[in-house]
């Protein structure tokens, strides 16, 4: 494994009396692609700003390559940022925006008269031109150099911001929702492009997004945050398959989260029945949250099912159907390629590896019920919805 490059050690952040970051502990390895994932306002940008040097944690330390950098100003950090709101220089054209870092920074060259010493010189103009053109080509904006910032669309400005940071080949690149303003197709292309740059140039990426799919497809490591706390750190597979709590399970993909009880290792109970599963290590009869991903559920004829329920809603999604099934008042989401009509009685079968068992947490009972899946059911579930809304604030 490569070596540790950045470490946030017990970072605590307060604005006025609001706790924004609650004792964040995090390390980032050299050349790693790490993603901070979480809902709006959970502290992702604040975390990046601490690493970039724009904010000092109220308490706690930031280390770069083993050196504490709390007091190092931003322009002395070997970190470049793609800002969430682009922050382009409106008094310069696109070329000059991208060239800004190259013009500012002097590069070390060996002193011809004394090879042991290095001199610092400006980057030569031809090299600036070559690298800026390269960077613009990378973000698909070749030929835009002479244009003014204000003549570009939001997505184009965002790509200029990416080029402006990447052209400096920093050791670490901080990207704050760098693809947020792009349409789906361009976003997919840029995801691949960024990933390629990251691997080719060997830059450490700290990437912020609230798009879970983006996080899963691009990252080596995903950090799920909520309300200023780290909920889980792991590989995309870990996060998806072994979510630590109901928040993570719900935020990463669709999940049915059901109240259950662990009878013994590898036997979980719900709806008063016992199901074989693969998890263990819980106390006998410990109450748990059971996560079942919608794609892990097979629909079978009613008499063959482990559970039976009534289809209340079917939505065609292209690749599959989203089917909402009522199991004694608790509604599940099932994703399947087989059509079942509304009102049908069906049975379901879940393989042992389809269950994921989580310890109860502060988030238990807040997520994972699809009663409010469509407007048709909103009225019936008004109380519940209101409760959820209240929780978000």
């Amino acid at each position: 494994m490569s070596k540790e490059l950045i470490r946030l050690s017990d970072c605590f952040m307060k604005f006025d009396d609001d706790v924004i970051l609650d004792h964040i502990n995090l390390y980032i390895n050299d050349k790693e692609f790490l993603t901070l994932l979480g809902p709006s306002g959970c502290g992702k940008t604040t975390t990046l700003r601490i690493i970039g040097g724009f904010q000092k944690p109220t308490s706690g330390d930031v280390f770069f390559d083993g050196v504490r950098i709390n007091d190092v100003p931003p322009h002395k950090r070997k970190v470049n940022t793609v800002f969430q709101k682009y922050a382009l220089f409106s008094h310069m054209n696109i070329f000059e925006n991208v060239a800004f870092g190259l013009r500012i920074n002097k590069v070390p060259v060996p002193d011809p008269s004394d090879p042991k010493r290095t001199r610092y010189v400006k980057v030569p103009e031809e090299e600036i031109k070559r690298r800026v053109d390269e960077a613009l080509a990378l973000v698909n904006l070749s030929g835009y150099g002479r244009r003014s910032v204000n003549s570009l669309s939001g997505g184009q400005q965002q790509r200029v911001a990416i080029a402006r940071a990447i052209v400096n080949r920093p050791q670490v690149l901080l990207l704050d929702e760098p693809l947020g303003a792009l349409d789906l197709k361009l976003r997919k292309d840029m995801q691949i492009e960024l990933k390629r740059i990251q691997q080719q140039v060997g830059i450490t990426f700290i990437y912020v997004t609230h798009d879970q799919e983006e996080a899963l497809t691009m990252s080596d490591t995903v950090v799920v945050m909520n309300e200023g706390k780290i909920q889980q750190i792991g590989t995309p597979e870990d996060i998806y398959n072994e979510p630590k709590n109901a928040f993570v399970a719900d935020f990463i993909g669709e999940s049915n989260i059901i109240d259950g009880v662990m009878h013994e290792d590898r036997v979980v109970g719900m709806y008063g029945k016992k199901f074989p599963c693969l998890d263990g290590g819980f106390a006998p009869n410990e109450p748990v949250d059971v996560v079942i991903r919608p794609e892990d559920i097979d629909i079978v004829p009613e008499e063959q099912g482990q559970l039976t329920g009534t289809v209340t809603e079917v939505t065609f999604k292209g690749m599959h159907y989203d089917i909402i099934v009522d199991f004694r008042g608790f509604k599940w989401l099932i994703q399947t390629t087989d059509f079942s009509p509304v009102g049908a009685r069906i049975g379901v079968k879940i393989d042992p590896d389809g269950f994921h068992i989580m310890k109860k947490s502060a988030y238990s009972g807040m997520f994972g019920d699809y009663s409010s899946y469509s407007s048709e059911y909103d009225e019936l579930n008004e109380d519940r919805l209101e409760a959820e809304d209240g929780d978000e604030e």
Partner: protein
Amino acid sequence: MKSRRLVWLSAPYVLWMALFVVAPLIVVAAYAFTVELADGSWQVTLQNFAGMAGYAGVFARSFLLAAIATVICILIGYPAAYLLARTPPGFRRIANMLIMLPMWMNFLLRTYSWMFLLERNGFINNILGSLGFFNLVNALNGALNGAFSLALPTDVAYFEFLGSQGAVVLGMVYNFLPFMILPIFSVIEKIDPRVIEAAQDLGANSRQVFRKVIFPLSLPGVLSGVTMVFIPSVSTFVISRLLGGGTNILLGDLIEMQFLGNAYNPHLGSAISLVMMVIVLVCMGIMNRFGEGEGEAVLL
């Protein structure tokens, strides 16, 4: 529907402009290109403009003093505005008010008070005297006289501030400085802090941030400040009258004399006004062209 109705909201302004800006301009132009003959009839002619060559000195002095005052206003006003924009908001409001405060007082009064300050027995000479400054000057002059056999005066009891061009420039700077500070301040204040952060992020230290980002972004404010200081300076007549002691007459005085003074000749006065306006407009045009790449200047 909505926009049609909004158009009518501008009617009072349009009417005002037509009545008090456009109409007077037409009248001025009409006067400028005519002379009144002995029988009281008017004749179209360029004679007024031809007769203006004799006033080239006044033109030159007016534009020079106004330019000097404008440059001094930039040199004082820019740092002031910059520092002001970086102070915490509470103090900023107080400082803003202090800058505006003199403007609440009548322009004439303000200028008169400088007269009293600069007089022979005025405040400043008194202070200098009681500090022993003139004794020092006299002693120094005496020493210099002795050493180099010069004939410097050794009985200096006051400085003659009034009547000098310096006093006129001082009056201009004093009166119009707020018009330089405020537009610069408001432009700097509006610079997005994230843009500054972006520059720092790309490796710019605070000097480079200022040179490459803050200063270019603040140029539109400087341009409108220049406009707002230069134009009233070039056309002022109160300041030169009161502080210039009548010896350094400026364009404003010249024009005033043609309308209200003993040199009564509104036709010549109009012609001078027109030429001055054209020169000012050309200056402003050139300047705005310069600033074009940096963002649009606010021409007030």
